[in-house]
C-alpha cells in the first residue's frame, strides 16, 4: 500500500521504516533511500534552500508513482515522505521506503520511485548562495534515469 506524506517537519528515519514492518512476518526485505541538503551545488556554497511545491498535485503525483511501482514489482508497502519549506545543509529532504518479500524487488522499486519523483513530482528548489538566490536547474541526467525505466 502506498503511504505518502508532504510536510515541513523533519522525520525520524528509524521510526518511519520500523513502522513499515512492525507486527508483520511477510516482509523479507526493506530498502530505503534518504536525500539530504548538500552544502555545495554547481560549484558554489549553499547556505539554505526553500522547497516549493504544488499542493494537491504533489500528493497525487507521489501516489501515482508508488502505485506504478506496485504494478511493476511484488511489493508490500511503499512510503514517500518529502519535506517542503525552508531547509539547511545536512537536513533530510526525502525518505523512500519499500518493503517486499525479497530484496531484488525492494531495491529496484526504491530506485524507480526516486527516479520518477525527480522528474514527475512538482517540487522546486530555490537555493541561497553567497552570490544570491537561484532556482535549481533540472538535470538531463535525471531525465535519462527516468527514461531508463520506460
Amino acid at each position, binding site marked *: 500500500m502506498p503511504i505518502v506524506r508532504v510536510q515541513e517537519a523533519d522525520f525520524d528515519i528509524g521510526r518511519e521504516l520500523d513502522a513499515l514492518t512492525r507486527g508483520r512476518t511477510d516482509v523479507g526485505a526493506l530498502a530505503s533511500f534518504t536525500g539530504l541538503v548538500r552544502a555545495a551545488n554547481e560549484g558554489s556554497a549553499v547556505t539554505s534552500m526553500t*522547497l516549493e511545491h*504544488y499542493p494537491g498535485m504533489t500528493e497525487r503525483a507521489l501516489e501515482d508513482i508508488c502505485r506504478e511501482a506496485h504494478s511493476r514489482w511484488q511489493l508490500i508497502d511503499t512510503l514517500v515522505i518529502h519535506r517542503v519549506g525552508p531547509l539547511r545543509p545536512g537536513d533530510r529532504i526525502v525518505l523512500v521506503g519499500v518493503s517486499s518479500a525479497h530484496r531484488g524487488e525492494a531495491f529496484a522499486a526504491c530506485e524507480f520511485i526516486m527516479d520518477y519523483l525527480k522528474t514527475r513530482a*512538482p517540487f*522546486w528548489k530555490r537555493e541561497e548562495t553567497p552570490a544570491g538566490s537561484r532556482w535549481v536547474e533540472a538535470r538531463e541526467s535525471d531525465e535519462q534515469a527516468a527514461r531508463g525505466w520506460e
Partner: protein
Amino acid sequence: MVTVLFFAGLRERLGTSRETVPLAAPNTTVSMLVESLRNREGAWSEAFAPGKAWRVAVNQRMADLATPLNAGDEVAFFPPVTGG
C-alpha cells in the same frame, strides 16, 4: 473559464501565481492557451517563447500541448521539477 496557476521561477518571472482565463473556443487545447499567453506583452512572450523549457499539468496531472481543456479545468505551468 479555466484557472491557470504558475509556480516557482515561472511565477516569479510572470509576477502572478493565479488567474482566470476565458476559453477562446470549445474544443480548445493546452496549445491554444499557450498561444494566447505567448501573445501577451513582455515577460509572457519570453516565458512561452518556442524552445523555452516548461511543463504543464491539467487537473493536477502531467499534460502536454495536445491535452484538451474544458470549462472549470485547473491548468498549471511550471519549470522542470527539481525535488528529491
